[in-house]
């Protein structure tokens, strides 16, 4: 089995679906000849032709809006927005139309659209390249929001997203694109889109994270283990709909929860998880739920980027605070 990076896995999943389903199209700015600015679509146009892998004019709303049209007429479009920070012009089409089409027509028209975008900070990029916007999309009824954080989950979840009859926002943590390699079998097996992944079992505290911050979370867990603290680690991955069942089960066992995300704290997905823990798991909690998040500021340029992002030290501190209770 080949060892591949997360971005290779994304490429493999698209190639698999292009190969097996004629209704799948990949399109976006620079996805064709250039293979995407991160190379996520490298080689796909060569293999599948210009009709299946299309370079588009530079227009984000068009990518989403035409995706709605294509999806409604029976295709499975997979559109790329070059950076998640460029997604705002497409936001209207995504929330006003992609998310609502099925409901507006009581199921007569559906929108099996996937919008992919590199996601998150930590890559020393210019302004508007490093946004963490999952909460904006998770708030919208009718959408699914997915962020894999390993090559295996990227492959399985992207397959699932493309096959899903609902519109899916598929964010790819660009910081992790080439950070680790993992064995991924190109076997066409999809992963569920509504279940959290328990990466490691533990008994003292549950660490709940997703996206690029998963990397620091796993590191923190490893160091804490070495210090004798047993951590259960959950990769939420499918942000919306949110699988609270897995999280609640874990917290029932550990009694402590630390939520880690890169996005700003205010009204973030962490707040939703914390509220659910308060509503349904309060009697299992031995300590207040901790959140380690980005600050409520615009993602800074890279001189301050590291100080914005949740660090291993901040995560460990939060775990220590829950243990002090």
């Amino acid at each position: 089995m080949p060892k591949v990076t997360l971005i290779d896995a994304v490429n493999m999943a698209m190639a698999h679906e292009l190969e097996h389903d004629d209704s799948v199209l990949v399109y976006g700015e620079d996805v064709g000849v250039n293979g995407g600015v991160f190379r996520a679509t490298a080689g796909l146009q060569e293999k599948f032709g210009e009709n299946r892998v299309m370079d588009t004019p530079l227009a984000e709303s068009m990518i989403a809006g035409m995706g709605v049209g294509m999806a409604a007429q029976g295709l499975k479009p997979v559109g790329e927005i070059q950076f998640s920070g460029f997604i705002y012009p497409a936001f209207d089409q995504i929330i006003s139309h992609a998310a609502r089409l099925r409901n507006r027509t009581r199921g007569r028209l559906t929108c099996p659209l996937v919008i992919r975008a590199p996601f998150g900070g930590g890559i020393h990029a210019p302004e508007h390249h490093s946004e963490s916007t999952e909460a904006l999309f998770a708030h919208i009824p009718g959408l699914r929001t997915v962020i894999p954080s390993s090559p295996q989950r990227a492959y399985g979840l992207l397959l699932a997203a493309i096959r899903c009859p609902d519109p899916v926002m598929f964010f790819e943590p660009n910081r992790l694109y080439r950070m680790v390699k993992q064995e991924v079998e190109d076997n066409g097996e999809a992963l569920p889109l509504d279940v959290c992944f328990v990466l490691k079992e533990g008994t003292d505290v549950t660490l709940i994270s997703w996206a690029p911050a998963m990397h620091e979370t796993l590191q923190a867990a490893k160091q804490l283990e070495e210090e004798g603290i047993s951590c259960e680690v959950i990769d939420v991955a499918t942000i919306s709909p949110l699988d609270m069942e897995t999280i609640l089960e874990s917290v029932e066992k550990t009694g402590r929860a630390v939520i880690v995300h890169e996005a700003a704290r205010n009204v973030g997905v962490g707040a939703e998880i914390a509220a659910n823990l308060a509503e349904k798991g309060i009697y299992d909690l031995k300590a207040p739920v901790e959140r380690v998040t980005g600050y409520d500021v615009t993602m800074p340029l890279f001189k301050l980027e590291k100080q914005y992002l949740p660090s291993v030290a901040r995560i460990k501190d939060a775990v220590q605070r829950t243990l002090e209770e």
Partner: protein
Amino acid sequence: MKTAAKFEIPFVQYLDPKGKPTQDLPKSASKDELLKLYKMMSKVRIFDTKAIALQRTGKLGTYASSLGHEAAHVGIGTAMIEEDAFCPMYREYGAQFVRGVKMSEVLLYWGGDERGSNFSGPKHDFPWCVPIATQYLHAAGSAMAFKYRGEKRAAVTVIGDGGTSEGDFYEALNAAGAWKLPFVGVTVNNKWAISVPLSKQTACETLAQKGIAGGMDVVQVDGNDIIAVREVMEQALKKARNGEGPTFVEMLTYRLHDHTTADDARRYRPDEEVEAEREKEPLIRLRQYINDQGWWDEDQEKALVEELKAEVDAAVEEYQSIEPPGVEDMFDYHYEEITDPLAEQREVAIKEARRNA
């Protein structure tokens, strides 16, 4: 100085406001066809009048009238084939009735019931689009799907004059041109975007010329002349279905009613302007023409109006007899399968509805 490029905007009209031919009429303007079109336009008008009355008496929510647009809308609808896709805005009932959407479904939608958007007529047609210009991209995407599968189908979309100021409008024209899509974009230029007149909307001499920037054929047509509208649309659609690229059509008409029933156009629009435009409206001129040909008379007109009123009344009755949706109706269509968090909320809402029953 050298000229880099030059453009012309053709203008098409067959009947002047007095119903007199301005050129030889096309073959499609036969007696049977024109009587059919006249009846359809009359139906739209009678429906419209009734819908406004229903709103005024609290039996309908806010309603967007299509008064004065009958030729544009019926012309678009009758030029299309069933396989084409229609991406309307929110007042193109004329086109939709031709395509099989029921009057009771239009009423259901404006009566605040989403089930109205699950209408009869081609299953692939888009529902009414209230956010301005977004539907242009849905049509471009639909056209892309038809082209991709090599189908002889086209997508038609409609926008008002105000909508041509929107970004999505330009993005759609640009994409349709770049990909040579089977796309026909229409702007029904009714001179007013709620209270903003065309002169404040754009410095362009015509709206049609905006299509030139998209690299496509453009045409301006007298939108109160159904013969011209249908002819132009048929040609544009034939071209699109044959893979010869998109067209942008500007239809010149006038909004004779308020923007919607929630609007009062007297606040911003001079009465004299409306009165002058009323003389040019589409039903008068076609009726004059078919009268002049000896194909229509006062008795036939009276009989038609009676017949259509009865048809509209029956539709209203049908609309009013539809049971309100159950509370679960707002939960059941967001995802193909209801999600766990939503299923939980659905139960709560059903319980709550029972308690309040």
